[in-house]
């Protein structure tokens, strides 16, 4: 069965100081998690533009994950507070235009939360797997004859 199960493509945008470090910690702790996520490292969640999310979807991602430092922990003092507002707005916009919030997820993961990172990747992968491929978006890309697919 496992050979037939759908393997979702997920692209994650993370800040280098917290979530990327948390992902490294998951590695040094030898935790195991699903191999479906590709990470793009940014200095801060403040740098993560909504455009990145759209481009990840264009690239054929079935899901997108955005993650950074917990509120109050930002290395740049308040990049993540700005990011949080943007996410609130952008998420609501995507929802209104028909992109399920289940496809684009957000999280806070600190440099210490290696196990949270591993758990999150597993649960997000599982959630997106249940949702199945993002056919609607991919159909739109196909209709546009845009060749970008993972």
């Amino acid at each position, binding site marked *: 069965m496992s050979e037939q199960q759908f393997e979702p493509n997920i692209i994650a945008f993370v800040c280098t100081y917290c979530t*990327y470090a948390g*992902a490294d910690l998951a*590695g040094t702790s*030898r935790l195991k998690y699903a191999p479906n996520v590709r990470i793009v490292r*940014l*200095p801060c969640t403040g740098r993560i533009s909504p455009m990145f999310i759209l*481009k990840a979807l264009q*690239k054929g991602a079935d899901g997108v994950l955005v993650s950074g430092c917990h509120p109050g922990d930002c290395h*740049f*003092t308040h990049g993540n507070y700005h990011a949080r507002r943007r996410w609130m707005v952008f998420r609501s916009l995507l929802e209104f235009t028909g992109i399920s919030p289940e496809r684009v997820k957000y999280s806070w993961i600190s440099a210490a939360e290696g196990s949270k990172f591993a758990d999150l990747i597993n649960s997000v992968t599982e959630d997106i797997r249940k949702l199945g491929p993002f056919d609607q978006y991919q159909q739109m890309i196909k209709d546009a004859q845009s060749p970008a697919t993972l």
Partner: protein
Amino acid sequence: MAKIGVFICHCGENIAAKVDCTKLAAAMGEHPGVAVSVEYKYFCSDPGQESVKKAIRDNNLTGIVIAACSPRMHEATFRKACAEAGLNPYLCEIANIREQCSWVHTDSDMATEKAMDITRSMIEKVKRNNKLQPIEVPVTRRALVIGGGIAGLQAALDIANAGQEVVLVEREPSLGGHMAQLSETFPTLDCSQCIMTPRMVETAQHPNIRLLTYAEVESVDGYIGNFKVRIRMKSRYVDTHKCTGCGDCMTKCPVKKISSEFDCGLGKRTAIYTPFAQSVPNIPIIDTASCIYFKNGKCKMCQKSCQINAIDFEMQDEFIDLEIGAIVVATGFQIQNTAMYGEYGYGKFPDVITGLQFERLATASGPTAGKILRPSDGKEPENVVFIQCAGSRDPSKGVRYCSKICCMYTAKHAMLYAHKAHGGKTNIFYMDIRAAGKGYDEFTRRAIEEDEASYIRGRVSKVWQENGKLMVRGVDTLLGRPVTVAADMVVLATAMVPQPNAKEFAKIIGIAYDEYGFYNEAHLKLRPVESSTAGVFLAGACQSPKDIPDSVAQASASASKVLALFSKEKLEREPVIAINNEATCAGCWGCVLACPYNAIEKKDICDRSGRLIKQVAYVNPGLCQGCGTCVTFCRSNSLDLAGFTEKQIFAEVMGL
């Protein structure tokens, strides 16, 4: 045309056991723009690095990708190797296929596939990397220390002794701060004045220190290495160059009954005064609110008594503009006004006093010449009750935090009282005894065991007067019963709070503060003495409640940070900073608001005749820390972040 080198590290078995490195190297070799794709056991080893350097030189590579461990491990190593091979170090990217791939996945095929994606996207990124140069910022080697308490003095002296110029600004007429008010200090019971006053004198006489007392920082502009600071010299009405400090004016001043701030209201001073006898500089000021001349234009007794004609009633505030390279903020603390505890009777009963008032009573140079006497009748109290946490650790009325020093000074007060008033009894109401520090717990034990301080674990609910006694009602939680103690004096261990203008002052300097007004360190653990603004450092209780050893240690730490900054003529910084496209910038200033570092300024664009065409954002490279928050905000896509440019990220995603 890009010529990228891809170097795939086995990391022994760490990567190779899970990721098929040979397959990876072959696949990357087929990627457009890749000139070299090789694998090796340990690229971080000396021979590994040599092979990278050789490949760069032999193939004239335009960028390299090291597929290995996390960039947090060896990015610096390989950047250095690039530089040694003549390639700009910022043309190196790390594909993290160990921590985020081989170590965390079980399926070898999927791990290999993921490693390919990771490496590919880094190849695409590095193709668009720009050659970056570290940012050089010139440094003015002159430090400004704000605050002349023990932390400020320590920082100033450390910097000055290392041969650098210091300007020390103190807003009071004299150096000394709170420490000058104290009697003996814990845990050694050495006299505060005895250790403080020599430091004050040393500071005043130091050839590298310019001392500005009765002065305030008016404005701070600029950035690390290049601050422009304006100081307001408040007028003393006494010519500091002429005055010899003889004190005749103070003797002659007819207004003698002004409550002394320095003595916390327990002593008196004149209208022309120095805060205390050992003031540095020993030059009086005129308190215009009390001076008869300033009130009704008559008197001038001081002027008449001054043989060198140093009194000048017409004196005005002056401003001094300074070029400064680094700032140490050592603005100290205040004690919290305890009036919110109506039940303790502070302000209502004269013999309910604060710990700081007790210090003034206990000090030999104080208003009672070191005798512990009741403010109400001047009698020596026979029974003193100390109430700890009179404000601290009380979210409902006081402050949430622990003021850190009260446990120690209360124990000290009990000891001093025991030494001075033989047979006197002390009762101390406390929540916990927090005596962590070198010799601290021994000290409190001594207070209990040798000086018979009686500690009662519990809070006080009420203090009232009865038959000339202060009745203190509390609860002994260890025995589980209420207690009432008849005392002659009650001493409140008040909370340490930020200076009343701490927040406004933080805005002047441009540093961050917490909900109380204590200044925020850049990182609580790793950068505890740096503020959120580059080039501004913190020392002493302005950052959080601290005792003298901690304040001094932090001051020295700040001084060492300043000295490190001053060790070079130019400051080198990571070039990961935002840059603005002035042609497309719409000047909406959202970025200015969004920037956590006040690093974005408005810049005028003028035509050849000097006519203003438009204003655009300018990112100050000295201040920008490279978070990229402004870039994301920018609707016209005019801002970009070096090292993580829009092009790079786009390519990274599209290369996946």
